[in-house]
């Protein structure tokens, strides 16, 4: 009897919960003027455009801030376009850039956008000295000279003077990067504390003029933007943007299928496959900037032999990987500039060829192979790549031991030049070919004490005075076509001789509701702009 009562009680409680729930859960799709995006945004650690340097951060900055120079997200191949500056001139010596700021545009606060804001913003980057500041300081700006080098000569004219002659395309591309965002100087100055240039305040607030303004940011949870109805470039169709942090691919897919999000940005191959037959949904492909490579420390007596380096290029199963565990997520790419960049190189001279690899090893005096260690961070795709390489290397007699660790552990060893072979990924820092050339193909000082830890060539102890000079020459070449050709030539040589084996370029697969149009992820050069989105 008592058991029956108990069971009755449990049944009743369950029935009440279920009926309460079925009456209350809400399942409407998203409204027509609201875009809800599922993304991983836990890498966003600051909202200050002169401080942040992560992928999700770029998406945020593109929408909340403007730069002097901009991109057309609908046609990125046009290259840099007028932004807050509607025109510019370059002096004959190539060192002085005069920007004319467009009149009549306003920040979200209602303040007018003037050359003084541009002056404040660019000086702020130099004075704050945060990680991305090198994108501007590479033109010779520093604390001492910044007042003379970056100067508003009247309300709508900004004059920037570099230390040397650089290719105008190089300078202008850098002025289109997130770090060159123009902030509302009056607003930021009013929030300065103890000479911090308003950094503390701007890390969690916004002071921009972009198509959207910040409503609320909850770190690792969500951020919300609202339209700037007076935006100068276009009228955004979406009144509100909500980006939610949904770490798990399967959860993103479920939300997309239910219509609770419009866009899912981190679907894994299984989930992409899973939604492929659904006519309410679509999947877009876009080549992004991330390059996957392995590199060999040139301090190692074996790995520094050119024949060994060449042999290893034939001992990697590029196609096997992109057709299996990397399917849809990467394409084979064997040069240091991502496709879609100025100076891209499409040649793919290497394929898995064990016999050729063995022959080259024998020529290098290692017919019986050798032992080496690969260090790799414990991210699934990298481990799988390392395992595939371990397997194919073994077929040529090279015994590889894999050492896994967290990103920071492995990176620490890499930066300290304490490794043999590293499985890495690199994404460009700004939309100009110099960004990758400067790290893959430039090493002005190979000594340990130089600690040029930002340069991959230095990390791999690759001493290359000639190529370093070539990299510099390309950055200074004023003829655009000639400059592009210099990068092609440099990559051809790099592809054959460097200690880097570039293997893959990232292909981003974005799941979206079929009614969402104009969602461009920014290819290799930039991020998302939401004002192009319609439903």
């Amino acid at each position: 009897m008592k058991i029956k009562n108990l069971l009755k009680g449990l049944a009743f409680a369950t029935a009440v919960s279920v009926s309460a729930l079925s009456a209350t859960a809400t399942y409407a799709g998203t409204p027509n003027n609201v875009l809800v995006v599922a993304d991983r945004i836990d890498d966003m650690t600051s909202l200050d455009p002169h401080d942040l340097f992560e992928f999700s951060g770029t998406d945020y900055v593109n929408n909340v801030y403007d730069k002097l120079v901009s991109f057309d997200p609908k046609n990125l191949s046009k290259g840099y376009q007028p932004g807050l500056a509607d025109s510019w001139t370059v002096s004959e010596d190539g060192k002085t850039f005069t920007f004319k700021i467009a009149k009549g545009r306003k920040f979200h606060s209602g303040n007018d956008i003037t050359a003084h804001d541009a002056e404040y913003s660019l000086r702020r980057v130099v004075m704050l000295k945060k990680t991305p500041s090198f994108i501007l300081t590479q033109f010779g700006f520093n604390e001492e000279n910044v007042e003379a080098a970056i100067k508003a000569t009247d309300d709508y004219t900004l004059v920037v003077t570099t230390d040397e002659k650089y290719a105008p395309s190089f300078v202008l591309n850098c002025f289109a990067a997130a770090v060159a965002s123009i902030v509302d100087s009056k607003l930021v100055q009013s929030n300065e504390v103890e000479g911090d240039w308003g950094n503390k305040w701007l890390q969690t607030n916004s002071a921009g003029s972009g198509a959207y303004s910040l409503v609320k940011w909850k770190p690792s949870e969500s951020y919300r933007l609202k339209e700037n109805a007076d935006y100068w470039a276009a009228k955004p169709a979406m009144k509100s943007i909500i980006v939610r942090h949904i770490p798990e691919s399967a959860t993103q897919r479920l939300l997309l299928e239910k219509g609770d999000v419009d866009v899912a940005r981190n679907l894994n191959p299984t989930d992409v496959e899973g939604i492929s037959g659904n006519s309410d949904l679509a999947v877009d492909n876009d080549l992004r900037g991330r390059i996957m490579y392995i590199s060999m420390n040139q301090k190692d007596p074996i790995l520094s032999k050119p024949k060994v380096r060449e042999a290893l290029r034939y001992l990697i199963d590029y196609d096997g990987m992109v057709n299996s565990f990397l399917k849809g997520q990467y394409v084979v790419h064997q040069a240091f500039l991502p496709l879609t960049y100025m100076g891209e190189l499409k040649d793919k001279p290497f394929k898995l060829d064990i016999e050729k690899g063995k022959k080259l090893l024998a020529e290098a005096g290692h017919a019986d192979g050798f032992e080496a260690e690969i260090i790799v961070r414990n991210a699934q795709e990298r481990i799988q790549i390392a395992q595939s390489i371990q397997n194919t290397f073994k077929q040529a007699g090279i015994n590889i031991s894999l050492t896994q660790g967290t990103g920071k552990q492995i990176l620490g060893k890499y930066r300290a030049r304490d490794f043999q072979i590293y499985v890495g990924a690199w994404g460009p820092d700004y939309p100009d070919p110099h960004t990758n050339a400067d790290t893959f193909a430039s090493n002005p000082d190979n000594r340990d004490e130089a600690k040029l830890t930002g340069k991959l060539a230095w990390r791999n102890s690759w001493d290359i005075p000639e190529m370093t000079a070539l990299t510099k020459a390309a950055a200074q070449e004023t003829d655009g076509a000639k400059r592009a050709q210099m990068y092609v030539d440099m990559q051809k040589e790099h592809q054959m001789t460097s200690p880097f084996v570039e293997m893959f370029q990232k292909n981003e697969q974005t799941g979206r509701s079929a009614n969402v149009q104009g969602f461009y992820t920014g290819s290799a050069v930039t991020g998302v702009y939401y004002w192009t989105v319609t439903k």
Partner: protein
Amino acid sequence: MSDAVDTATPKRRGSSVPLLKRLKSLITVLLTVLLTLVGLLFVTFIIGRVMPVDPVLAIVGERASQDIYDAAYKSLGLDKPLLVQFGIFLKQIAQGDFGISNLTARPVSEDIVRVFPATLELATVGTIFGVLFGVPMGVMAAVNEGKWQDQVVRFVGLFGYSMPIFWIGLVGLIIFYGLLDWVGGPGRLDVYYEDVIPVVTGLILVDSLIEGDLDIFWNAFSHIILPASILGYYSLAYISRMTRSFMLEQLSQEYITTARVKGLSERTVIWRHALGNVMIPLITVIALSYANLLEGSVLTEIIFAWPGLGSYLTTALLSADMNAVIGGTVVVGLIFVGLNLLSDFLYKVVDPRAR
């Protein structure tokens, strides 16, 4: 011997305990708590410093030049001796300052105030679920030892123990959210309801009631019920197994036979006398299981995109955000100490002999 026999005596004894003795025991408790916390801080701090993870890189990023790296290294105080660093750190904590999180650029204390209520709410609903179902199931299994009811409870419990929470969470979402539409999806609320009501306690179920907004209450309820049930299922498995074994022990005692002989109804014997005595060890079991849930269940939080302490701590740990890790550890430590004190206190309420 039932509880009722004893209740009067200890009260009289209690009143004769001198004030000084009570004060002494209070001071002992406080000292123990303090020492535990300092120990915890020390261990966490040392682990944080000897871990082969570079906290500077976490702040400046992979691309930073050596100058920027060195400046950040200094500003973190990493150039000072370890003990000096610990001293500075203790001083800050004594002032309630856990420092700034590298990941969120906000004070860690603010972050914890933001993420902890999400975990608290989930763990509380989960524990209520676990107790409401787990205790009766354990009692039922003990009363019917060896019969089919016992087997069913055992099966349910074992299933709960052995299924990965990741899998149960996903399957639960697919069925109850994806196919049946019975519950809300991942997250604490539908996005359109977020930030609508003012934050008072941070517990949306409570805040929505304070604000009198039933729409938000039910929406939050529809979102929390699935993850809470799944977490609750795990505590149910544990609580029902423990209740069963405690009950079996009690049911074999002589006082139960006496009570039956006296002609008390079976209901009174089981639910009042046997379960009454089981409550004492059960409180510890429930408190521990609650404390486990309060640490934050990382996998559940990831699957359900639940912005709680578990995912906050995990992200912090993986990014070497040591201020956040230490802040979170102190909170978890406080929870354990607090719940232990609470269960000690509840002992005394339930069992007068413990006073």
